[in-house]
């Protein structure tokens, strides 16, 4: 089986889960979810021995925005699930590609929740925004070794977190660029010249902590943090900078992630994490976040042109997101910039 149809998935998943649970399983409904392209994602409504429940299937695609290990993602969900950071319950990781034509994982559905923060009222943005940065602060306050992350990913030295991440994303840009990238090249040189101080502490870095990667109940709370496929151990500034990248402000430039004023988001994170921001080092991480974003969009463009996947989201990311990310980097670094996106002043 190469690319299964929805009917293939319906049939194979029912058989798979019936075997795992030793129960009668009928897939009542199945729907592919549009958006994040790191995995093909499907929502399945099941009848299990007469009871209803929903599960989410994540299947490796032919190509993706982010080349990541499914075992890392699944391991992160399993390690975080028992904590106060809400994530979907991980159920099964299946590396046998013969079942659905590619490895996959299955998680419980987080019901009655949405991810689009544009739907929030002003009060809702305040409430969900506060929770978003509280949760990130809580994650930074946790000991990754106690959570068992040393079994899931490599443990870097505090003084090497920034340099190792920079080297990784530089290699992605250099390997995947279809056209020469003068803004990325200038930004990489700046990052090399201005490496920050060692990390204050080692933390679990989600790697893609942004609006759109969590679910919330429309009148309630954040109920799940999703998409842990880029998670690793590193500097707490990394996730905070990524979460505050102006790329994630689609309609309201003054609100980080379309939710809260930047300084408010930072203050909430500081209180929840018990850490204090060093503004100079943090500026480095903000420039790094923009370079990492650009690397992902460059990579998705390469995947669209040369890879097996021809998903529209890859073309969109490779074009539109690169465009805005380049302008963010110019805003940060150009001596001629008027710093519309905050620049070093944030």
């Amino acid at each position, binding site marked *: 089986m190469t690319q299964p149809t929805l009917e293939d998935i319906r049939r194979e998943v029912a058989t798979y889960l019936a075997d795992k649970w030793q129960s009668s399983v009928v897939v009542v409904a199945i*729907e592919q979810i549009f958006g994040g392209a790191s995995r093909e994602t499907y929502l399945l409504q099941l009848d299990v021995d007469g009871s209803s429940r929903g599960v989410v299937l994540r299947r490796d695609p032919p190509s993706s925005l982010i080349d990541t290990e499914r075992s890392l993602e699944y391991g992160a969900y399993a390690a975080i699930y028992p904590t106060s950071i809400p994530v979907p319950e991980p159920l099964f990781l299946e590396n046998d590609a013969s079942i659905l034509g590619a490895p996959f994982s299955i998680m419980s559905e987080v019901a009655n929740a949405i991810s689009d923060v544009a739907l929030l009222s002003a009060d809702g943005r305040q409430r969900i925004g506060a929770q978003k940065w509280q949760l990130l602060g809580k994650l930074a306050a946790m000991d990754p070794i106690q959570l068992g992350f040393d079994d899931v990913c490599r443990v870097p030295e505090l003084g090497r977190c920034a340099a190792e991440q920079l080297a990784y994303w530089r290699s992605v840009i250099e390997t995947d660029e279809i056209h020469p990238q*003068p803004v990325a090249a200038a930004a990489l040189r700046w990052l090399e010249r201005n490496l920050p101080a060692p990390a204050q502490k080692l933390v679990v870095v989600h790697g893609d902590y942004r609006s759109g990667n969590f679910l919330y109940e429309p009148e309630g709370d954040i109920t799940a943090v999703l998409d842990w496929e880029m998670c690793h151990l590193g500097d707490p500034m990394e996730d905070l900078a990524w979460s505050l990248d102006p790329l994630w402000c689609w309609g309201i430039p003054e609100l980080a992630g379309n939710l809260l004023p930047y300084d408010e988001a930072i203050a909430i994170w500081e209180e929840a994490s018990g850490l204090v921001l060093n503004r100079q080092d943090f500026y480095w991480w903000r420039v790094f976040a923009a370079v990492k974003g650009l690397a992902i969009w460059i990579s998705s463009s390469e995947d669209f042109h040369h890879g097996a996947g021809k998903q529209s989201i890859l073309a969109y990311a490779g074009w*539109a997101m690169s465009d805005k990310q380049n302008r963010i980097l110019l805003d940060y670094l150009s001596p001629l910039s008027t710093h519309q996106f905050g620049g070093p002043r944030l």
Partner: protein
Amino acid sequence: MIPYPASGLKMLAERLLGTVVPALGSKYAMSDTAMLSMLMVALAEEMESGVARRLQDIEAMAGLFQVAREAGIDVAPTESIAAEQRTLSQVNEIHDGMTAQLIVLHAEVEASDDYSELNLAIWGYLQANAERHKLAL
């Protein structure tokens, strides 16, 4: 008939969005097709003015290289563009070659205090380039 590919592509995209998307059975297919339609509109715009924008870039980069040569920096000669080369893919190739040269020049220029004006001019070019190619997506 003189064909108008850009407006034709835009019309096809509108038809996709207005007629095909509402008739699709799944949310995934609707979102995917709507995004395809949006990309087709952006491609139509690129077909219409992509060559002109790249030629502006090329002229600006050639100017920067000339300033660099006058300042004593070794920059390889710039290819001239014949009229028959002015298709998008051929102009792209020349644009890429010059951009690669610009990256090398920028690294050299920013490493020395002697070339601060040229450094500013390169940043100015990068900003102007980003604005010129800004997408409405």
